[in-house]
């Protein structure tokens, strides 16, 4: 076999095999459901601001606000935009006007995230992966299966390659998110990042002291994180496990076995939940993106069986 053919075969195996139209449609619905909850966890502080309060001048607007000339916060606009975003997410989830919903959703996320990050200039990355998934869904045929859009329409069957590429690309992006993170840590800080007096211990101390000490000298909040920081070998072990998980995470893309997927997801989910409990990193709802790693065709089938939906393409009708 020539080298070109080998590359082509590997490319086809990697991006164009493994999933059906049902997998893609059901994944869209589940990611939509996850996003609904995710949005709620991301903007409570922005929504709690007084609608009639001061129009804050941003100290460092996010780059697209700067290009668009948005330098001031309009507090009454947050709630309508949030409602619009939730409605667009529901439409995306049920597959009604799917593509326009993605566009609306994207604009709303950019706006609310821009507001949140422009007050102090800290840019958070919590929407990078969800927005990339939306981008991939936009170019896919996700609205043609398991969607209200498909009701009464006879779309041609979605071929395996058409359903697989968005899912495989999403998986690749999610995994590389972890992999590049460990590469950056090693390149910029080195092994010291994971050491006994390294970054994890430092973050445990920083985050637990954020609320300060009580009158009796006790740490007020997250005292357990402060206590954990004193157990240097446990912290070191946690760091080593994080490094191993991130370094080897790309294997899940190649080993297409359930045990590998489950192992990866357990690692990632514990990582995010621990980050939230110990360090208050607001990524705890993030594991909803891991639906991408399972073939969700069974979900579509079960749904259809349960609710007696006859048209295999449509759902919720």
């Amino acid at each position, binding site marked *: 076999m020539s080298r070109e053919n080998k590359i082509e075969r590997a490319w086809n195996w990697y*991006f164009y095999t493994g999933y059906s139209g049902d997998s893609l449609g059901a994944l869209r619905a589940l990611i939509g459901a996850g996003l609904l909850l995710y949005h709620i966890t991301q903007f409570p*502080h922005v929504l*709690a*601001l007084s609608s009639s*309060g*001061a129009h*804050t*001048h*941003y*100290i460092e607007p*996010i*780059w697209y606000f700067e290009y668009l000339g948005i330098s*001031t916060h309009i*507090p009454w606009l947050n709630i309508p935009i949030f409602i619009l975003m939730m409605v667009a997410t529901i439409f995306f989830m049920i597959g009604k006007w799917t*593509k*326009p919903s993605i566009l609306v959703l*994207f604009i709303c996320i*950019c706006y609310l995230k821009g507001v*949140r990050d422009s*007050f*102090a*200039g*800290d*840019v958070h*990355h919590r*929407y*990078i992966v969800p927005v*990339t998934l939306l*981008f991939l869904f936009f*170019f896919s*045929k996700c609205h043609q299966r398991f969607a209200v859009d498909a009701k009464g329409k006879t779309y041609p069957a979605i071929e395996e*390659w*058409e359903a697989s*590429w968005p899912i495989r690309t999403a998986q*690749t992006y999610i995994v*590389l998110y972890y992999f*590049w*993170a460990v590469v*950056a*840590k090693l390149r910029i*800080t080195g092994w*010291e*990042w994971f050491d006994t*007096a*390294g*970054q994890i211990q*430092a973050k445990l*101390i*920083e985050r637990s*002291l*954020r*609320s*300060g*000490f009580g009158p009796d000298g006790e740490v*007020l909040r997250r005292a357990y994180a*402060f206590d954990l*920081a*004193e*157990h*240097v070998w446990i912290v070191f072990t946690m760091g080593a496990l994080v490094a191993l998980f991130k370094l080897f995470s790309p294997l899940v893309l190649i080993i297409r076995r359930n045990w590998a997927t489950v192992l990866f997801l357990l690692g990632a989910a514990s990582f995010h939940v621990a980050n939230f409990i110990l360090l208050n990193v607001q990524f705890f709802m993030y594991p909803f993106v891991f639906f991408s790693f399972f073939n969700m065709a069974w979900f579509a089938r079960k749904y259809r069986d349960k609710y007696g939906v006859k048209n295999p393409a449509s759902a919720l009708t």
Partner: protein
Amino acid sequence: MGHCAASSRALRRDKRGVTLWSTGPVCGDRGPAASSLIPVAFGDLNRLATFGELPINIEQKAFQVYGPNLRARFMRLLAGGFVKKKTVTKFLIGFHVFTLDAVFFRVDTFPLTWVPMYSQFHGQTQLVVLVGDKAKLRKGFEITTAAGETEFIGPKTLNVPNAAFRRLYTERAFGKGPPKHLRERERLNPLSDAVFNLFYEDPRTGIDWHSRLLDMMNKTLDREPGDPDYIVQAIATYEFTNVSRETRRTGDLSDLSLEMRTAVITKRTP
């Protein structure tokens, strides 16, 4: 060939107020060889624009030529998604090249790209940690107005979330920028560094946070220079603790000494 009136303007208007697209010399009668200056994609537009002052709206023409095609493509995407495997392959190559490039050049621009967070660690020898004080944060900056009065401005007055105010009070006030600036610039490879310097000043050193803070407060509260209540100074005080590497290695954090730090925020005089 007739005389050409040189014009370097990209857009100009004729006597009837019709916008013309012109990137090269605009000629009175016939088209010159200016089309060679124009990218192929704009070839038709150039031909239309350089053949004298045509009594048609070039923008309308451009839409007639390109608009329906672009619109049709977009509508096809909305209706169906990619239909050809070749297109998908090109898309995937472009997508991954773009993502990898951004990682290499460390460009942190949501929603296009990201730079991994928490990669930097500056507490190797001495870890400086702020010790929270919610009451102090609620009270906010102690400000002095042009008239010499003092008052406190907190998150409620400025209408900013508490977490953002904490960053303003304990970081920007003490001259510390957001982590994004470090993420993008620290230990960059020389090529990325050179590219970055072409477009931006180094944000780690190029931003006067004190001026920005005062501007932010004055603009938010509609206070103009010359007003008696214009804010000329703000003070932030906060407790910090230093934890040495040796202390952290032993794991004994029972004896942390606290140190009060004060940031006096005034505008830098030019």
